């Protein structure tokens, strides 16, 4: 009985959480860069990443340094850059 209860509960929970996951976007990947880069640390991070990975201006970068090169080449970062 216990095992059946756990299985039913687990199936219900996975089904309930599916729509939330389907219709959401993980914003930790970053938001589109708009405006100027203000904090010096963030600017340094971007410069270091460009140097290290030979990125051209406009390449996509996350706050944790992940490079997301896309056909659009839009700069992406989270709240490090405002």
């Amino acid at each position: 009985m216990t095992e059946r209860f756990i299985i039913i509960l687990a199936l219900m929970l996975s089904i309930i959480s599916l729509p939330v996951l389907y219709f959401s976007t993980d914003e930790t990947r970053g938001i589109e860069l708009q405006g100027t880069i203000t904090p010096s640390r963030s600017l340094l991070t971007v410069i270091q990443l460009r140097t290290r990975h030979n990125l051209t201006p406009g390449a996509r970068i996350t706050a944790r340094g992940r490079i997301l090169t896309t056909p659009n080449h839009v700069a992406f970062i989270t709240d490090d850059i405002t």
Partner: protein
Amino acid sequence: MITEALSGVAIGTIAGIVPGTHPNLLATLLASQSATLILATALAHTVTSTLALVYLWYPNEDTVLAQHPIAQLSARGLGHEAVKLLCLGNILGLTTATILTPFLLMALVVMHHTLAPYTVIIVTCLVLFFILHEPTISRKIGAVLVVILSGVLGHITLNSDITDPLFPLFTGLFGIPALFTQFAPRPPTRRQQPTDMVRPNLLQLATTVLGSIVSVSTLTLLPGMSVSQASLMSTFLLRIKKYTYLVLLGSTQTLDYYFSLLSAQTLGKTRNGALEIIGAHHFTPANQWLFISVLVFSTALATLATLYMSRHFPHIPHPRLLTIIVLALLFGAVLYISGHNGILVLASAASIGALPLLFKTNRTHLMSCLILPWLIRYGI
């Protein structure tokens, strides 16, 4: 999002059954990936590591206290019962907390403001309580020694320039000694049969789950306190019986992530290695339900996978060979992540981590590696 969550569950499930691995190690390796993937991996690993604990006998810092009731069940060939009770706790704790989210968010903020001025006193009292909780004088003395040595090592390590110092520290204190116990002579393992004999009653379950919510939410606000200490507190206060204890432990494991998530969102503090790697600033009220859904989804899927694998868990013909391979992998990972100094920390931590086994004291005293440096920094 679904693809990332599913990938995380797959990675965590596979890594969970590899003994000696820890969610924080996976989070470190996946640091450049999205928060969804890291969270799903950590949760799936937490749930499926139950199998390594029950069938391969490899506890980590969160599950060290479960050895005794699991040993009793395994000796009777009821390892599957232990897996079921841990899974029941995993899923029931998280479900109950998710339903109570609005209330718990408010409670966390109120408790934080109430406890904040007394944190140093409360943490000191808890350390003393855990020492005095040891049954004999010799064990109490052993516990004091473990607290001091692990605290000094933690203080030195955390103030050094080692990359990711917690990884060699925790691997040495908890992982390596647990792996070395595999080389000690053990009674022949009994063939495990899937059964449905242990059934906790509804009142016990409700008390256990609510007790775990109260203890984890309180200890989330206190630095250096681990899941096993939350379980120990609940066991002491609620007088939880031995098999229900496994439900409590399962519940505290998943609640640790849940409350760390709430804490990151409301107080800006992460109390969990995986969330620390992602970064507290990523958890905002706007994505609160998204990440709670990731927790629920990955826990649910990992629970189904764990129950299935428990029924079909293969007999490991050479457990000692597996131990040697895992030891070599951990050694290589420490060398790669933390360098040569990391190996020094690993060796020192492993020596101190073996002391609780020698003194037969509770291994939760090793968490002083975080508590003592914190007390030195903020209490003195």
